[in-house]
C-alpha cells in the first residue's frame, strides 16, 4: 500500500492523539481512584446529605466518560486541580518550576551535541592512537555508571575537594516576566555547569558513538574515495562531504533524546537540588501528591509525543528516500 506524505502525517498524528488520550485516562484515574476526593475535601463533621451534595456538585455521580471528558476539557483550559501538599493551583506550581528544567535541559543538550559531534568526528578520522582509545574507554565507563553516581563524583571533585563550583541550587536568578533565568548571573552560570554535565554525559556518549559509526561508514564509501582521488583537501572531505552525510541520523536520534533528557532530569535535579519539575515530581511521589503526579505525567507525555511526531516529520522531509512508497 502506498501512502502519500500527507496520509502518513495524518496517521502519525492520530496515533499520537490516541497515546495522549490513554495517558490522560491514566492521569484521570489517578485523580479519581487513588484516595477519595470527597474524603480529602470534607472535615470530620459531615452528614451523608453533605457528602451526597458535594459528590453531585463535583460531578462525581456522572457517568465515567462524562467525568473523563470534563477532566480533559478542564486540563485543556489549564485547570489541573490543586496540589494536595502546597494548596496552590497545579498549573501555577508547574509554571514556576518550568524555566529551571528547560534551562538545564537545553544547556546539557547543547553541551552533548557540541562535544559529542566533535569527539565523534575526531575518533572517526583518527581511529588509532591514544586519544581515541582514552575517549572510547572513558565513554564506555561513563555509560555503565548510574547517573546519580556521576553526579556525586562531580560534586566530590569540583565542590568538595576543589570548591570551584556550587553543589546545589540554581544560584542567583533574574526574573524576566514569568520566566526566571539563572543564565544571566555569574553564580547562576556556575551553578548550572555540574548538573548540565551530569545530565548531558549519557547523550554525549551516544551522539559520539553514533557520529563515529556513521562517519566511518561514510568515509569508506565510493564518493569519498572519489573526492580523495580528485585531490580535495582532507579537511574539506571530512567536514563538507562526510560529516554532512552523517547528520540525518544524528539529528533524529538527538531529537528523540530530548524527551529522555527531560525525564532523566528527575535524577540530576534531585542530586543537585535543582528546583525544577523533576524535583517537584520526586517530592510529589514521596508525599503522594496525586494532582502534581498526574499533571506531570500528562505534561511529560505531551512533550514526548510532540517530540516524536516532529522528529518523524523531519525525518521524512529530510530523507526523500522514505517518501516514495512508504510501506505499511
Amino acid at each position, binding site marked *: 500500500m502506498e501512502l502519500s506524505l500527507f496520509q502518513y502525517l495524518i496517521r502519525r498524528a492520530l496515533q499520537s492523539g490516541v497515546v495522549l488520550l490513554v495517558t490522560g485516562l491514566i492521569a484521570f484515574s489517578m485523580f479519581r481512584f*487513588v484516595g477519595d476526593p470527597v474524603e480529602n475535601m470534607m472535615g470530620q463533621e459531615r452528614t451523608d446529605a453533605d457528602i451526597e451534595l458535594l459528590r453531585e456538585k463535583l460531578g462525581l455521580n456522572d457517568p465515567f466518560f462524562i467525568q473523563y471528558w470534563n477532566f480533559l476539557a478542564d486540563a485543556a483550559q489549564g485547570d489541573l486541580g490543586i496540589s494536595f501538599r502546597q494548596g496552590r493551583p497545579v498549573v501555577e506550581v508547574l509554571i514556576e518550576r518550568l524555566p529551571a528544567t528547560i534551562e538545564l535541559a537545553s544547556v546539557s543538550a547543547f553541551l552533548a551535541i557540541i562535544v559529542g559531534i566533535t569527539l565523534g568526528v575526531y575518533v572517526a578520522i583518527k581511529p588509532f592512537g591514544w586519544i581515541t582509545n582514552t575517549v572510547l574507554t572513558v565513554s564506555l565507563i561513563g555509560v555503565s555508571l*548510574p547517573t546519580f553516581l556521576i553526579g556525586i563524583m562531580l560534586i566530590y571533585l569540583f565542590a*568538595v575537594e576543589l570548591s570551584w563550583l556550587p553543589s546545589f541550587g540554581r544560584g542567583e536568578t533574574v526574573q524576566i516576566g514569568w520566566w526566571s533565568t539563572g543564565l544571566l548571573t555569574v553564580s547562576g552560570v556556575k551553578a548550572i555547569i555540574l548538573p548540565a554535565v551530569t545530565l548531558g554525559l549519557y547523550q554525549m556518549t551516544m551522539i559520539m558513538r553514533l557520529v563515529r559509526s556513521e562517519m566511518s561508514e561514510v568515509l569508506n564509501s565510493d564518493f569519498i574515495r572519489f573526492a580523495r582521488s580528485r585531490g580535495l583537501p582532507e579537511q574539506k572531505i571530512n567536514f563538507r562531504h562526510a560529516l554532512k552525510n552523517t547528520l540525518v541520523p544524528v539529528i533524529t536520534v538527538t531529537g528523540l533524546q530530548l524527551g529522555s533528557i527531560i525525564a532523566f532530569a*528527575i*535524577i540530576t535535579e534531585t542530586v543537585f537540588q535543582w528546583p525544577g519539575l523533576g524535583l517537584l515530581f*520526586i517530592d510529589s511521589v514521596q508525599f503522594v501528591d496525586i494532582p502534581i*503526579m498526574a499533571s506531570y505525567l500528562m505534561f511529560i507525555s505531551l512533550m514526548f509525543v510532540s517530540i516524536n511526531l516532529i522528529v518523524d516529520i523531519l525525518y521524512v522531509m529530510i530523507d526523500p528516500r522514505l517518501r516514495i512508497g512508504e510501506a505499511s
Partner: protein
Amino acid sequence: MIEGWREFVRSNFIYSFSRAPVAIGSFVIASSLILFAIAAPFISPYTPYDPATLNLMNGFSAPLAPNAFTGDVFIFGSDDQGRDILSTILFGMRISLFVGFSAVFLAMILGVALGLVAAMAGGVIDAIIMRVADIQLSFPSILIAMLIYGIAKGITPPEMRNEVAIWVLILSIGLSDWVQFARVVRGSAMVELQKEYVEAAKLIGVNRVAIAFRHIFPNVVPSVLVIATISLALAIISEATLSFLGVGAPPTQPSLGTLIRIGQGFLFSGEWWIIFFPSLALLLLALSVNLLGDWLRNTLNPNVGIK
C-alpha cells in the same frame, strides 16, 4: 546426566568462555558478590540493624583505624550510628539483588507470556499488545517505574507503606521492563511458527498451548536468557536510582541505593567512606553483570537487539 555435563564442558559455549578473560573476570566478581550477599547473615562481622549490638561511641570510625573511644576496628569504617559499613553493604546488596532478580523474573514471565500470546493469537490481540509495548518503549523505563511506585504508594494505606515498599519496588521495576522480552519472544516465535514441524504438530492435532510450550518456547530460551542478564544489570541500577531518590527501599530495609543516599549527607563533612564503599559495591555489581550480559549476547545470540 554425566554425559550431559561432559557435553556441556566440551561445548562451544564453554570453549569461548575459557577464551574470554573479561567474561571470566566478570563472572567471578558477579558470582562472588551474589554469594556474599546470600551468606550475609553468616559472614558479616556485625549485625548492623540490631540496636543491641550498636555502640554510638563507634560512630564515624575511619576505615582500618581503631576507634578513638572504643578501639574497635572497622575494615570499611562505620557510619554515624556506629554501624559497620561492610556489614551494611552485605545486607544492602542482599536487598538490591533480591529486588533485581525478582523484578527481572516478573518482567520475564510477563514478557514471555505476552510475546507468545501475541505471536500465536495474531490479529487484534497482537496489535494491542505490541502497540502498548511501543508506547511503553517510547518512555524511559525509570520514569514508568517511578509512576507505578507513586500510584502503588497512593493506593496502600500509610501504616503499611514501609512493609510493602520492597514489593512495590519489584512490581514497578518489573512492570516497566517486560517490553524487551515480549518483542524478542514474539519475533522468534513468529519465525518458528512458519516452520514445517509446527505445521505438522498442528496437523496431528496438538493443541495451541502445548505447541507454544513444547515447540516454540525452547527456541526462545537463549534470547530470553541474554535479555534477562542485561535486564538484571539495568534492574539493579534502576533499584539503586529509585532508592537513592527516596522512592525505593524503605529506611528499615536499606539497599545499596539507600546507603548511597544516606552517605551523600556526609560528603561535605569528610566522612567519604560512608558513601564510597557502597558506591563501589554497586559499581562492581552493575558493571560485572553488564559485561557478562554483553558477552552472553555476543556468544549465544548475536541477533538480539537491545537498545
